[in-house]
């Protein structure tokens, strides 16, 4: 029985990890673009992005998943997500990417704005281009400052992936819960908890290592 459960949970966990990894892959750069947009002097760029961030951070991710998955079909009578498991996964991924990009963009913004203006000015009077100032002077300082809040957000993402089940994406909790119905046992659910704990534990170690690596300057 243990092996049956393990195999089933692993299958669910694969979906969880896939959703987690792909969300990061897309939302980390998207968040950066959005943060630059939200700081832009151009109002037609800034306002929509600030509005989007407000909506995505101000409403439950669960609600966003439902609306993004069912919305297009019901409102416009087109199935944009494709059929079956793949379609539902894509819809979930899009919801996660947009939602997390909004959170990340605010973390980036905080990091970028916390760099003293003197750092930019020093770069300017030394004849550096704006690109050089950002890449060679600002970026690493921003990264150092955002590692702790990013770690927080990314570990939250590990657990948030379980919300995808609301549109029937078969992630690990779904797999675990199935055994309640079929076999009347609860321990597979505890077992899923162990998966989460180990995964987030590894991430914690990774971020601690990163913090240490950036500890050589202040």
């Amino acid at each position, binding site marked *: 029985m243990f092996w049956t459960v393990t195999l089933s949970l692993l299958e669910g966990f694969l979906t969880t990890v896939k959703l987690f990894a792909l969300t990061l892959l897309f939302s980390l750069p998207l968040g950066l673009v959005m943060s630059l947009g939200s700081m832009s002097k151009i109002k037609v760029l800034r306002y929509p992005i600030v509005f989007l961030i407000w909506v995505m951070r101000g409403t439950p991710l669960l609600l966003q998943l439902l609306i993004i998955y069912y919305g297009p079909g019901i409102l416009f009578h087109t199935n944009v997500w494709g059929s079956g498991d793949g379609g539902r996964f894509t819809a979930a991924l899009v919801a996660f990417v947009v939602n997390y990009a909004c959170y990340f963009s605010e973390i980036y913004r905080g990091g970028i704005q916390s760099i*003293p203006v*003197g750092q930019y000015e020093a770069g300017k*009077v030394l*004849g*550096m281009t704006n690109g050089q100032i950002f890449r*060679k002077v600002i970026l*690493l*300082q921003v990264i150092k400052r955002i590692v702790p809040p990013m770690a927080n957000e990314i570990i939250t993402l590990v657990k948030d992936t379980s919300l995808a089940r609301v549109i029937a994406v078969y992630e690990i909790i779904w797999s675990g819960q199935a055994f309640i119905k079929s076999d009347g046992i609860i321990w597979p659910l505890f077992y899923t908890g162990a998966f989460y704990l180990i995964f987030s534990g590894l991430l914690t170690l990774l971020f601690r290592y990163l913090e240490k690596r950036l500890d050589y300057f202040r």
Partner: protein
Amino acid sequence: MSILEVNHIRKNFGETEVLKDISFSMEEGQAVSIIGSSGSGKTTLLRCLNFLETPDEGTIKVRDEVLFDGAKKENPSEAQLRQRRLHFGLVFQQFNLFPQYTALENVCLAPQLALKEKNEAQQKKITEMGEELLERMGLSDRMGNYPHQLSGGQQQRVAIARALALQPDILCFDEPTSALDPELTGEVLKVIRSLAEHHTTMIIVTHEMTFARDVSDRVIFMDGGRIEEQGTPDEVFGHPKSERTKRFLAGY
């Protein structure tokens, strides 16, 4: 030919007139001190020279080349602005060293980025120049240290070396010792003094009156966005003509 000619510079921040018709010139190899109370526009003037602020009116000429002319409503490109800035160096009150680089890397970063083509010989030359500059600053044993491992005085000396590395025509100091403990100002002033002895062209905004008197060839006293009085240290400190200057100096 004057190395720097500043004519009728005006600068407003909103409703506030910060600089009202500033004109002065200086010769190559001179050290000019700018003194005056806080808010008199000294720092803004330096920031205008370094193109961190754009004056509203007036002209700035370096070796007869017009770098800024308020009458021409031009919008300089980033590259043009960079080119103009390179005539000036600026040492900040708060040092503004790059924390993630060592002292030597701080000095060498900008010259290395400015290289058209990067080859080992040239990079080595820059490193050697950086080491030489830090040695002149008395920091030969601190080259591999990061800014947070240095005292304020040491950080400021690294900042001076960093500004010198680009060989500016005119090196500007914005209250270089104001952020330092009294104990540490001496080592920074000593370095600036030795630069003056080697005829580095400098503009020094400072509250260190004795130092300004000793080290500079000319002194400018600013008050309320105007140049109230200028002349040799002996004229300004010894025989000030303006009542305002007398009152200011009496405070020291």
